[in-house]
């Protein structure tokens, strides 16, 4: 018999999630994509770099299942390795933004008053700036050789995304702060630090998980957009889409150059969004207990 009494709200939420078909579909799709991008290269020894000008723009067939690009590189390999980059950037940038955003939001929300006002003013100000402007600024801070590397891009993206997380966490913290169990903890004599770590943070988990899951696709899209503009990483899905668009012309359709990265990108984004929605429903307090 499932010991439901001994499961905390987080575990029960995941149990609810399991019953949501769309979300589980998204989850499995993600697993598939990750396995594809990280498991396959090792297994098949794919080579994304070596060029073969003779066979450039070869359509899909044996030997090159997704054809070759304008420099003759194996497109399947490129799409998969590009996927690694896109996913990694998505994950790392999200982690960075979650860390900063949660910390910032908790402090602002818990202490309130002038501290909160000042902190959120900064957030409002940053929100108001056009993000492309910021990104370009950040990119310019790195030297020529560093551009095209994942690090600057991921920093730029992470530094922007934390704003939303901070706002959400601040709002939740403010409302949690007034809950009676926090008052009870204060009456026991718990310090602020203890209250933040043991009482507030665990109750934020739901919100954090949901919005982190929804941040990942946002970051991936941003990166793709940057790549499209030529500011992104050397090899990612966004970059590949950009290349695919470049070679479009009315005479020869090199459809595989656009279709493959777009399909994978789209599938990943859909999967993440379904999963994020499912998580949000699963953590909804109305469905709790």
């Amino acid at each position: 018999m499932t010991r439901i009494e001994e499961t905390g709200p987080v575990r029960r939420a995941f149990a609810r999630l399991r019953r949501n078909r769309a979300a589980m579909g998204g989850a499995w799709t993600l697993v598939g994509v990750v396995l594809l991008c990280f498991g396959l290269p090792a297994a098949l020894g794919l080579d994304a770099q070596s060029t073969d000008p003779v066979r450039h723009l070869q359509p899909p067939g044996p030997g090159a299942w997704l054809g070759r690009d304008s420099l003759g590189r194996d497109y399947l390999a490129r799409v998969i390795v590009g996927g690694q980059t896109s996913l990694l950037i998505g994950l790392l940038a999200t982690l960075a933004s979650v860390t900063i955003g949660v910390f910032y939001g908790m402090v602002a929300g818990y202490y309130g008053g002038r501290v909160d006002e000042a902190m959120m003013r900064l957030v409002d100000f940053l929100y108001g700036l056009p993000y492309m402007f910021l990104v370009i600024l950040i990119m310019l801070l790195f030297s020529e050789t560093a551009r095209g590397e994942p690090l600057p891009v991921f920093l730029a993206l992470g530094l922007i995304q934390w704003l939303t997380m901070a706002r959400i966490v601040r709002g939740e913290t403010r409302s949690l702060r007034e809950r009676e169990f926090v008052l009870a903890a204060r009456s026991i004599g718990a310090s602020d630090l203890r209250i933040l770590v043991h009482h507030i943070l665990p109750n934020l988990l739901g919100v954090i998980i949901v919005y982190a899951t929804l941040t990942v696709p946002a970051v991936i899209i941003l990166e793709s957009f940057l790549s499209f503009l030529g500011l992104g990483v050397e090899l990612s899905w966004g970059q590949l889409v950009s290349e695919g668009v470049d070679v479009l012309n009315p005479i020869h359709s090199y459809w595989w150059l656009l279709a493959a990265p777009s399909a994978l990108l789209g599938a990943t984004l859909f999967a993440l969004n379904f999963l994020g929605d499912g998580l949000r429903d699963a953590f909804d307090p109305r469905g709790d207990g």
Partner: protein
Amino acid sequence: MNGAPLLSVRGLSVDFALGEARLRAVDRVSFDLEAGRTLALVGESGCGKSTLARAIAGLLPSSEGSVQLRGDELLGLSRRGWRPFRRRVQMVFQDPDASLNPRMNASSLIGEPLVVHQGLRGARLDEAVCELMERVGLDPALRTRFPHAFSGGQRQRIGIARALAVEPELLLCDEVTSALDVSIQAQILELLRGLQDQLGLGILFITHDLGVVRHLAHDVAVMYLGELVERAPADRLFAEPSHPYSRLLLSAVPRVGHRPAAQADGGEVPSPLAPPPGCRFHPRCVEGVERCAREVPEEIDVAEGIVRCLLRG
């Protein structure tokens, strides 16, 4: 240990700022509470009893007055100043759903005060938690469960066990049985009574239910719109209530075969934001005279208590 009473409250007032207006939720309340005795604080909505309890527990800032625990002043203490007193003064809240962190299991909840104040951990902590659970009538085997798995009465027991963890001298109970069924309420009340006998606890028991007061309290303080209007030993209050509001309250309690008296003016408690001038109770008072609308009554000492009424003493 000096001869001072366990809890001594003098002229305690609590104000809230609401935009431009200031709301005086508690107005110059004074009383004493001895160890081993229960003082019931009764009143209807807006009377300030919960606010008073939170102010005494240091959870709200008070504007003026004095709150002394065995002679040590509590009012105006900083957060750090309060720490040693958190062991001696504990509070149990009304809504067990809201006052227990849903993410913590029973063991963590009950053990938290022990972790914070005594730094207990591991086996010693677990042992202490089990012992506390038994003391309040909960099966220690359930300590890994989360609040949602317990009934309302059990959750309230968890709250009480947590409050007892540090062996307080003073227990503040804020409507702790109001949300419970009558048979569960009886269990909790008898549990509190037993604990008081065993541990010599002083209990400040806040409630709107006069029946509960009759069963539990040694002394009673009646509040109306932030003021203490009567304080008396329980026996005397029920036999011969002095203040007209106390009489109204008692006559309004429904009992078998006795139709509760309804006030002719259909009065209700006015908003605390706009209390009537003079004596706050005068618009609803059957005995009121013209003076009552102009003069503010002060506390009059009567045997073992006080009354705040122009027409007494």
